[in-house]
């Protein structure tokens, strides 16, 4: 196996690992499971790419694999309630400022609570757009739909978010 090919793959891992983890986290609302999905995503991507297939867009490939893994998983397991999953206590990685971590932990739980009423598809598209700052064009490539359709879905998800009781009170 070409050494530079391996290095390229490892570089892709360093670049995209956190993003893929965040994507999985907002799909499954569990740190532990998001880690498992992220790991499996990269291992599958390696299996896929080592066959010599030219990868035009590694990021899109990684999202697709992660997405399919989560869908497969949700088919095989009865969906666990997001209510239960959000009982996990710690999501934010520690930094030198313990107070900041605690504050972020609290804010994240609020965000999770606010997104809980969205459907899978809506949570997914908002995560891609506003957590990972992906353009509709990039999202379109990942989801295999048109950029126009992505924009429609984002608008629909935003509308749904605005309609939630929490935001209506604002």
């Amino acid at each position, binding site marked *: 196996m070409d050494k530079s090919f391996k290095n390229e*793959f*490892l570089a892709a*891992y360093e670049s995209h*690992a*956190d993003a893929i*983890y*965040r994507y999985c*986290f907002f799909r499954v609302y569990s740190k532990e499971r998001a*880690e498992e999905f*992220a*790991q499996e995503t*990269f*291992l*599958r991507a*390696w*299996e*896929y790419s*080592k*066959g010599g*297939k*030219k*990868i*035009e*867009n590694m990021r899109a*490939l990684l999202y*697709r*694999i992660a*997405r*399919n893994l989560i*869908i*497969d998983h*949700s*088919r*095989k*397991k*009865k*969906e666990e309630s997001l209510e239960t999953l959000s009982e996990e206590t710690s*999501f*934010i*990685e520690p930094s030198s400022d313990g107070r900041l*971590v605690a504050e*972020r932990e609290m*804010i*994240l739980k*609020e*965000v999770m609570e*606010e997104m809980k009423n969205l*459907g*899978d*598809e809506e949570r997914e598209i908002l995560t891609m757009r*506003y*957590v990972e700052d992906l353009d509709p064009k990039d999202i379109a490539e990942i*989801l*295999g739909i*048109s950029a126009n*359709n992505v924009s429609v879905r984002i608008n629909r998800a935003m509308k749904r*978010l*605005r309609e939630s009781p929490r*935001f209506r009170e*604002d």
Partner: protein
Amino acid sequence: MEEFFKKLNKVKSGLRLSDRKKDEIRGSILRAMAEGEMAPVASPAGFWRRFLRPVPALAAFLILAVSGTAFAAEKSLPGESLYWVKINVNEKVAGTLAVSAEAKSDWQVAKVERRLDEAAELVTKGKLTDETQAEVESGLENSANAVQIDVDELNSSGNVTAAANLASRLESAVASRVEVLSAVSRNVFAQRPAPKAALSLIQTKNISSGMVLRAQKVLQKTVESRIKLENKVAETVSSSVEVKSAAEAQIRAAVKTIKESRNYLKKNMKELGPNATAAVEAEIKAAEATTKDASAKAEAGLYGDSFNLSNGAIRAAEKTQVIVGARANLNVDVDESAEIPDVEKSATSGAAFSAPARTNVSSSDDNTKTDTGETQKIEIGD
């Protein structure tokens, strides 16, 4: 809302893999690289993928056509080795050959039909598994979405009758096949009378019920879209020349489809038997009556109403062809009185869409149950 995005920005940088976990994953990648210890992902289509990778679809099709593979692939089902050829060679070539926008939309409708026909055949043959279901559903949703995008584009460019016509074609493709799928799903036990592997049958039934549910969701969206567009046709542009011409064309199309349906029924009367033949004949007559109503509306200058009635007649006539085909090819009777939800009523009233009843036999294995809220898998690769 602004507050929400501020919160999101605050937390996202802290939401990352721990250094320890990152090292752990990197280690497992390095091990996989070094040892090649992971088994390759099993794929029956692997051979074809490797063989055809460098060859453009059309050239591949010509190569495979000469060997007869492309034709054999046409009959393949998800999970079979030639299915990859069917999807990635045959269908890509057919898609490329559809040049006009209308032909491209028609081809997407045809792909919706192909996926639903495959689903019914998989259930009938006891080959519907989580994997094959996922493959069919993914293709179904992609093609149905593609058609819906075309419908939206036609509508937004002011071509409302063409949009309504396309939405009606999609609905027609889906509606009757959902009934067939539902019928074969109900008949899983009846068709396989020696349930040595009872659990396998229960699983098939559960998976197929999930498949029916997904197809019904696609249908519901389609019906909603068609109704909105038909209302628009009837209310806003009834007097225009464009609608007059569309209404006249649609009457001709309805007459042609009814004729085709009658011929198809004649050809398959033996397989159907007298009762089913009489039932289908009654449906065709009803479609004929609707076409007459459409003509009367057109004569009265109500072109929008006429157009919508003709579309309804076409859908009804096309449905009879699918039902006759199901009987002739799958040996399935589509029982009209069975548990098919009234999609149109549900679409117009906004009522919650109900799932078909599942088998009462409980299975300890939840793996086969399909979550109604799940999204579809997408194809990996370029």
